[in-house]
């Protein structure tokens, strides 16, 4: 082996040859390392550049999103609000509420009527109960955004052997029972239920009419104009002050508004007289 090597490399003595081989080996390693390492910074540079570029791109897109984003999200709401002209101008904070209204807006025909009314004459003029109530309602200014107002149809839901009672009538009956209860209450097994007390307190609230018969006599003529007994009782219970108030609170009467307005006005005037005399 040595000889052959010596033959092949006659100049170099065998020891030197080994060294040169080792050196050559190391040289090759160095070269390969250099070859390998040389592009590394370049690669790193490229990598850094691409990362930076992507960050810049992401930031830009985020900026764009932020700029457009608000409008983008509000657009659907705006489009929802498009149904409602006034509400479209309202603040963002109200959007949720308006959406709620829009979703549950099955009785849209009611709102234009109430809009048209604007309820100013009573809310401004009156300082009484109705005035305050209407003030609270008109305080909401955007009465456009109204809650769904279901129709008041009790006749369909109740059995036939039912008589609607005005609060004053109920108060009279319940008061009579309570007076009798004082006598009966010696029997400890009979207890007055809570609903009786709360019912009586409710029926007697706000000083109802002292003479229920006369109230019924005043309001009963309205039945021939298409007013149901339930609606009649509600008119008596609420002690309304104007015909506009009645038509706003009992929308089912609006269909008969034309022929009902005058008799209703007279009835309300009569009721006011009774109330003032109490």
């Amino acid at each position, binding site marked *: 082996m040595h000889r052959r090597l010596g033959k092949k490399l006659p100049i170099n003595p065998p020891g030197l040859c080994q060294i040169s081989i080792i050196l050559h080996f190391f040289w090759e390693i160095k070269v390969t390392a250099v070859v390998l390492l040389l592009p590394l910074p370049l690669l790193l540079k490229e990598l850094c550049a691409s990362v930076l570029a992507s960050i810049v791109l992401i930031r830009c897109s985020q900026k764009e999103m932020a700029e457009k984003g608000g409008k983008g999200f509000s657009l659907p709401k705006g489009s929802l609000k498009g149904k409602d002209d006034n509400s479209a101008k309202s603040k963002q904070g109200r959007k949720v509420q308006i959406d709620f209204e829009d979703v549950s807006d099955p009785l849209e025909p009611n709102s234009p009527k109430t809009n048209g009314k604007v309820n100013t004459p009573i809310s401004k003029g009156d300082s009484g109960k109705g005035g305050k109530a209407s003030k609270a309602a008109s305080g909401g200014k955007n009465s456009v955004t109204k*809650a769904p107002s279901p129709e008041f149809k009790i006749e369909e839901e109740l059995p036939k052997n039912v008589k609607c009672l005005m609060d004053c009538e109920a108060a009279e009956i*319940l008061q009579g029972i309570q007076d009798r209860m004082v006598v009966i209450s010696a029997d400890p097994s009979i207890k007055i239920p809570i609903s009786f007390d709360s019912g009586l307190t*409710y029926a007697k609230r706000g000083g109802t009419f002292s003479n229920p018969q006369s109230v019924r006599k005043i309001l009963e003529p309205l039945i021939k104009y298409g007013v149901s007994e339930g609606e009649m009782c509600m008119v008596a219970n609420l002690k309304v002050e104007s015909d506009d108030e009645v038509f706003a609170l009992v*929308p089912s009467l609006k269909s008969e508004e034309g022929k009902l307005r005058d008799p209703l006005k007279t009835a309300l005037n009569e009721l006011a007289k009774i109330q003032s005399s109490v």
Partner: protein
Amino acid sequence: MFFHIVLERNMQLHPRHFGRDLRDKLVSKLMKDVEGTCSGRHGFVVAITGIESVGKGLIRDGTGFVTFPVKYLCVVFRPFKGEILEAVVTMVNKMGFFAEAGPVQIFVSNHLIPDDMEFQSGDVPNYTTSDGSVKIQKDSEVRLKIIGTRVDATEIFCIGTIKDDFLGVISDPGSTS
């Protein structure tokens, strides 16, 4: 709204109550059983006002009990969708407020309170208009409209709104003080 209605119920009576005052015993048992109860169809039975008829008793097999069909007149209170009620506020929180109209509980969500009324927390939580002229707090009287009802075994619970014309506060306890 209050109603006067004729209802019917089968009353079971133990034989020990039979005698001259059987009818009185039946009536007092009926009052105990029925008054204060609540049903989805008729609402709260507030008070029994009279007995229309007491039918013939039927002995139940195997027991000494006798069943009497009793027709009675009573005053009931039932809220209806679309009805306007005047209720007293019992609790106010940021979700809305609770009110009572007779035996009925009503919840008015803040979505159904006019937009310009904002919740104010504090010792007396309340909803107030921006100018402070209208305030809803505990014991305030409000006129509201019923928009939904839920009937439980023992109570009727309603959802109301004051977001409409002529609805809202009718008397404020703060204004008198």
